[in-house]
């Protein structure tokens, strides 16, 4: 298969999981014959009769059902139509799924897919980045793949591991991102990746912002700056070692996230580096996030709301010139 997109990788991973493991089934709104709002389950209902189920518009009951099925030995994949709507099922994710193992010693292997992040015209309720709020709760694994390869391999691993996984797949990457083929091996969950090597500054980021940061790095390299980019891949677990090693090399840290700033992933990274690696820093660590407002609708406003290659490059320059 050539020119496979991020979205197709997600579909292929689900097909693979359904094919290999009879415990796997998919449950979500419009995921059956229709193939999902984004076509992430296209043709799967036909290929795997009875195992790709349309749900009512009931996010709470969708997740609750998955927890029950997991207790009974299944490996359900739940598709939220948009990450934003997962808040309706929030209680079941954070209070039911996330606490089950701790309370009862019975594991809860469910995967909740969250098509997340901004796209032009998405607006306040089809654009949200909710990784921080799920990572806040003990008991959940939170994944944010930035590449086609990771979308595929991390989704397969999400289904295979024994814990509830919140799988944040970025809608902006669905169609734009392409790879020649699907990977046969991959970094495990919990390991960050150096997306670009550099000596002058570390940018720690994840998901779609990896690509904005890479574009910023190209721009900065024209001025002679070599920026290292760490793609976290998974938010929880968090590979602090790779971040710390990079900061040890560069002495400067910029954290970039598309999510809102307050109490988020970038704050967590800066807290860890400041507490555990203060001596590694040559300048105060900085972060760049979306503005602290709901996500706007109009493309002009949206482009200014979230970090872009240009704003990342500007923030990086400020830090590099210190």
């Amino acid at each position, binding site marked *: 298969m050539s020119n496979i997109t991020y979205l197709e990788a997600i579909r292929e991973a689900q097909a693979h999981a359904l094919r290999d493991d009879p415990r796997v*089934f998919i449950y979500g709104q419009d995921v059956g014959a229709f193939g999902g709002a984004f076509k992430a389950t296209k043709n799967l209902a036909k290929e795997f009769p009875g195992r790709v189920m349309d749900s009512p518009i009931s996010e*709470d009951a969708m997740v609750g*059902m998955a927890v*029950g*099925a997991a207790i009974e*030995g299944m490996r359900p994949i739940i598709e939220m139509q948009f990450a934003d709507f997962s808040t309706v099922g929030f*209680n079941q994710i954070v209070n039911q799924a996330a606490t089950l193992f701790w309370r009862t010693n019975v594991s809860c292997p469910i995967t909740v897919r969250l098509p997340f992040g901004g796209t032009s015209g998405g607006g306040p309720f089809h654009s949200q980045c909710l990784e921080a709020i799920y990572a806040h709760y003990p*008991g959940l694994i939170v994944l944010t793949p930035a590449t086609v390869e990771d979308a595929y391999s991390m989704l397969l691993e999400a289904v295979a591991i024994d*814990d509830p996984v919140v799988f944040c797949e970025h809608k902006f990457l669905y169609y734009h991102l392409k790879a020649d083929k699907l990977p046969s091996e991959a970094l495990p969950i919990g390991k960050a990746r150096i997306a670009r090597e550099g000596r002058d500054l570390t940018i720690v980021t994840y998901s779609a912002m990896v690509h904005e940061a890479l574009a910023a790095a190209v721009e900065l390299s024209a001025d002679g700056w070599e920026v290292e980019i760490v793609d976290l891949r998974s938010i929880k677990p968090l590979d602090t070692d790779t971040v710390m090693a990079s900061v040890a090399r560069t002495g400067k840290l910029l954290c970039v996230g598309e999510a809102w700033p307050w109490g988020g992933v970038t704050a967590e990274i800066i807290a860890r580096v400041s507490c555990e690696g203060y001596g590694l820093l040559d300048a105060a660590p900085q972060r760049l996030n979306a503005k602290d407002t709901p996500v706007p609708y109009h493309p002009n406003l949206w482009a200014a709301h979230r970090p872009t290659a240009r704003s990342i490059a500007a923030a990086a320059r400020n830090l590099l010139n210190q």
Partner: protein
Amino acid sequence: MFQTAPEISLGEAVSDSHLAAYRFMLRARLLDDKFAALYRAGKIHGGVFLGRGQEALSASLGLALNKTDVFAPLIRDAAGRLAFGESILDAVRTYMGSSLGPMRGRDGNVHRGRPKDGYLPMISHLGAMISVVNGILIARRFKKITGTVGAACLGDGATSTGAFHEAMNQAAVEKLPLVMVVADNQYAYSTPTASQFACADLADKGIGYGIATHSVDATDLTACLKIVGGAVTQARNGGGPQLIIAKLLRLCGHGEHDDAHYIVPELKNSTLGRDCLKVAEETILRQNWVDAAQLAVWRSNIIQEIEEAVAQVQREPAPDPFTEEWRAIASEHLSETHNA
């Protein structure tokens, strides 16, 4: 659509099931009394929630379920838990936070269960357990396991939640063998039903979901055995989800911290205010199924069993924070980088 449950055949079995249910009711009442006493003595951390007045309904459900069924009880279901197979020791260990109990001091009081035995430990968010029961039933459908049912219990207040609505509708759409038991005990904590719902009767809600609905006077054990048993049978035989609306009055506070001063005398003095345990006892003596002396023997044997369990648990080790494994995920290989 309204349906009445098919009647269990009335005959010699009536006395057997009545007596069996009564003994679980009595166990639950006496166990609850002990928890209340321990609470007042400061021996229990957190709250104590009693099922006083709800034992007939709860025991009838627990007895109607097989060990291979699924049961998601709520806070006033001590009788149903015991009838479903929970040991007094599990209950005492959970209330007292013993590390040897099923919840190991990590969760307590009514939040206890053994998920792998189909016995689900409730979370506090009302209505949230119903869809979990649905999930087990759907998994069993995938696994081609037939003939089992799942029961979930709630009070009148929980019928106002979105989770209740979503899960009832889900069960109806999937035609699952779910038995939803609603104890309409007139108050959700202090809030009377008039502030909770505006339909004439909670049973009306079943119409909207397109599922079979049954009403029962939960102060009457005989009626509970018949209606609850019938609804469970109907679900087991492929009749789809069943909604049972049981009318009763809570004969205690929400928890032992609550003196329930708000419960109006009119309700206490109505037939709803009858104590189902007394009603069941009167039936037993009137029918001469066993005599008062036998009831006294049962009572003292149960008390002894409870006292022994409490004494045993009081000697057991409390959880040790220094040896506790502070790990919230099952994937051991991820735990090092998972913890903050």
